[in-house]
């Protein structure tokens, strides 16, 4: 595909135009202005400048990389041209804003924006010229990068992104890192110059050596005798768990709060992973089970709702928890029985409808005496352990962490079991799975119920943590978010779920100060992922490993003619 057409400088122009239009759009929607308050490096470069440079950089990088492949001689010109064109478009915008009075169409096209777009303290043609030259230089830098060996290039790119993130997350990180380090890294606004350079070098070095040693390390690990390998993975797991358990002490309340939110999504996504990732049933109404878990917890434990209290005594958190999970599970089965005979798109639409029905039910006036209606329910019980009420984010962190571990354990077991195989077959081809004597309805129900129970578990903790509940928390966006977490993480992969939740739920949460613009990040992540890494950030690799094991096995045939021994496919 790439070979079909040799590179022409026109391609660089095209990429530059794309980038330029993107930059202009970013400016016109107000993102540049919103980010201008923030500096990346104090007194040197602001967030908005970094964004514009990033656009020029990306365009130039693609142009240069394309040129590098078919016409290496044109690499530098390609980068320069693409970068400069981005600069030209931005400069045109900066010059045109005031004379054209674009505000009537684009509310954000203010004279202030024009000033921000221009290099500091410059205006008119001179400013525009500097802008274009600057963008071209960024393009040149990107072009030079393509000459570096891949590993080095990747380390530099990773490190650049890391430095920007470090600057963005200043308010989050400052309270949790040692004071000395904080003073070294951060200035009043953004990073210090020394801090930025140091962290750039440190991150680049770490990334470089990590990528350098990883292949040989994993090969060495693979070569270890199984007993040793098991011991090692045990030690790694345990140390990882210890870190996880110590984390809240370091995190502080805000980061714990964010971790809790990520945790709710991890539990849900682990559950939905069983339904969509393992069994291939597209469930768009997953939030329903989350809501059922949360509302069961709320209704059973709140002192309010006199009507309910007339029939059911007020329960404690720990009694209500299994009931909440059980209710979600039952709901999963009840919905599953009629619905699971449909396939694909139909299933998706039916579940979507079910999710809305549940939300409308808890919102409805008719059920208000039982479910609180639009005002929701308050006074939901908190977990009490040894007489102490847990109500801080840090305490909840532990409950959520334990729930995640349980969910992880269950789903990873299921995946490797006979059941996991059957789900995989159902996902691949229902008819053939039936011809392998797989009870379609039964196995699908099992997947659905497992997923529902985990959503209920997440919901119960969610309800308890919030302490009060409104129907608005259970809209269809939750279902979509959980699904997006799965897709970005890697469908069917357990570590992928965690990575996906951190990237899609945690990161936007940390960037809260940028308001709705953070959803741009979300959208961009989704689009870019689907284009360049559709298998997800941490794809499900077990199958590939299985295949590798196979080839590594030296004399499969002489020892075991059936090859049954090395594979994990034997029904047990």
């Amino acid at each position, binding site marked *: 595909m790439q070979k079909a057409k040799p590179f022409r400088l026109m391609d660089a122009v095209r990429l530059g135009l794309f980038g330029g239009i993107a930059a202009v759009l970013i400016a016109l929607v107000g993102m540049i202005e919103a980010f201008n308050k923030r500096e990346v490096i104090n007194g040197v470069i602001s967030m908005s400048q970094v964004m514009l440079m990033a656009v020029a950089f990306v365009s130039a990088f693609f142009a240069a990389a394309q040129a590098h492949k078919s016409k290496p001689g044109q690499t530098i010109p390609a980068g320069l041209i693409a970068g400069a064109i981005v600069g030209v478009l931005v400069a045109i915008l900066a010059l045109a804003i005031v004379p054209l009075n674009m505000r009537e169409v684009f509310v954000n096209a203010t004279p202030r924006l024009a000033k921000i777009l221009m290099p500091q303290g410059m205006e008119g043609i001179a400013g525009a010229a500097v802008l274009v030259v600057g963008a071209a230089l960024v393009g040149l830098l990107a072009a030079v990068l393509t000459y570096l060996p891949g590993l080095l290039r990747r380390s530099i790119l990773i490190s650049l992104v890391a430095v920007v993130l470090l600057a963005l997350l200043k308010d989050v990180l400052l309270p949790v890192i040692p004071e000395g380090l904080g003073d070294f890294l951060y200035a009043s606004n953004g990073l210090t110059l020394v801090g930025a350079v140091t962290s750039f070098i440190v991150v680049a070095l770490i990334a470089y050596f990590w990528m350098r040693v990883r292949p040989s390390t994993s090969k060495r690990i693979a070569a270890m005798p199984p007993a040793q390998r098991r011991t090692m993975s045990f030690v790694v797991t345990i140390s990882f768990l210890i870190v996880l358990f110590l984390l809240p002490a370091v995190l502080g309340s805000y980061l714990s709060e964010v971790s809790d939110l990520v945790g709710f999504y991890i539990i849900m996504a682990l559950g939905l992973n069983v339904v969509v990732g393992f069994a291939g049933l597209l469930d768009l109404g997953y939030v329903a089970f989350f809501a059922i878990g949360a509302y069961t917890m709320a209704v059973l434990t709140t002192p309010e709702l006199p009507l309910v209290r007339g029939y059911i005594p007020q329960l404690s958190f720990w009694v209500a928890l299994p009931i909440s999970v059980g209710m979600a599970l039952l709901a999963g089965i009840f919905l599953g029985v009629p619905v699971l005979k449909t396939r694909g798109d139909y299933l998706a639409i039916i579940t979507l409808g079910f999710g809305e029905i549940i939300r409308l039910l808890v919102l409805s006036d008719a059920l208000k005496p039982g479910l609180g209606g639009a005002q929701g329910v308050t006074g939901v019980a908190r977990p009490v352990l040894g007489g102490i009420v847990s109500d801080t984010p840090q305490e909840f962190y532990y409950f959520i962490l334990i729930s995640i571990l349980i969910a992880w354990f269950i789903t990873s077991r299921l995946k490797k079991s*006979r059941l996991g*195989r*059957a789900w*995989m*077959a159902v996902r*691949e*081809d229902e*008819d*053939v799975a*039936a*011809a*392998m*004597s*797989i*009870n*379609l309805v039964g196995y699908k129900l099992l997947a659905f119920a497992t997923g529902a129970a985990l959503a209920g578990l997440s919901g119960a903790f969610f309800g308890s943590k919030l302490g009060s509940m409104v129907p608005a928390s259970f809209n269809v966006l939750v279902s979509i978010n959980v699904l997006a977490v799965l897709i970005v993480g890697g469908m069917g992969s357990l570590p992928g779920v965690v990575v996906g939740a951190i990237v899609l739920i945690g990161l936007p949460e940390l960037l809260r100060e940028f308001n709705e613009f953070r959803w741009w990040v979300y959208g961009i992540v989704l689009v870019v992922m689907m284009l360049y890494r559709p298998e997800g950030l941490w794809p499900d690799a077990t*199958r590939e490993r*299985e*295949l590798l094991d*196979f*080839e590594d096995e030296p004399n499969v045939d002489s020892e075991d*003619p*059936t*090859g*049954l021994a090395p*594979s994990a*496919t*034997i*029904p047990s």
Partner: protein
Amino acid sequence: MALLEIKNLHVYYGHIHALKGINLTVDEGEVVTLIGSNGAGKTTTLRAISGLLKTTEDTSVMYDGIELRQLRPHQIVEKGVIHVPEGRRVFSRMSVQENLMMGAYARKNRHQIADDLAYVLKLFPRLQERRAQHAGTLSGGEQQMLAMGRALMANPKLLLLDEPSMGLAPVLVETIFDSIEQLNKQRGITILLVEQNAQMALSIANRAYVLETGRITMSGNAQEMLHDEKVISAYLGL
């Protein structure tokens, strides 16, 4: 004694009356072929037998003394009736080995499974070479072998084959039909074979049925049919 005895099989797809009262028997150890042109209802017949389609109340599908209509698809499989569907439907993201093991999903006896795996790999040496490969990357012919091998792993008594020769080169068609004959002879597996390639099907079958728009229009000894003028002009294209 008839292993499979179908009486008055009717299937409707909505208003379309696809099978209009089919009677058909397959004796134990036989190869019986069901031939007919596109849309005659061959696939529908097999799907009805394996419980994937609803049949009318007065239909009877007796297999080994059991009424299959009362069973769910997976239960029918457990009775030893294994369906190899049309169009080589392998689990494309599983390896060849995993596909084969999927066939033995309901079985418990590991030794028998191992024996059957060895047999399948001997019957289709190509699969042996490609055990670790993803099934989706196999060639069409290899996928057909895999689909049949997978069915064999389920330890069939009655094998329902839906157009195993579809879209295959003549050489491969020979190979596939050779293995069908072997299965029947060596393993004593009874076979109901649906085919458009009437020439090949008739040459390996004991008996044959001709299906036309949902009705059996002819039946009898396969060898005789090979020389029947009506069959020759309609299905053998000579």
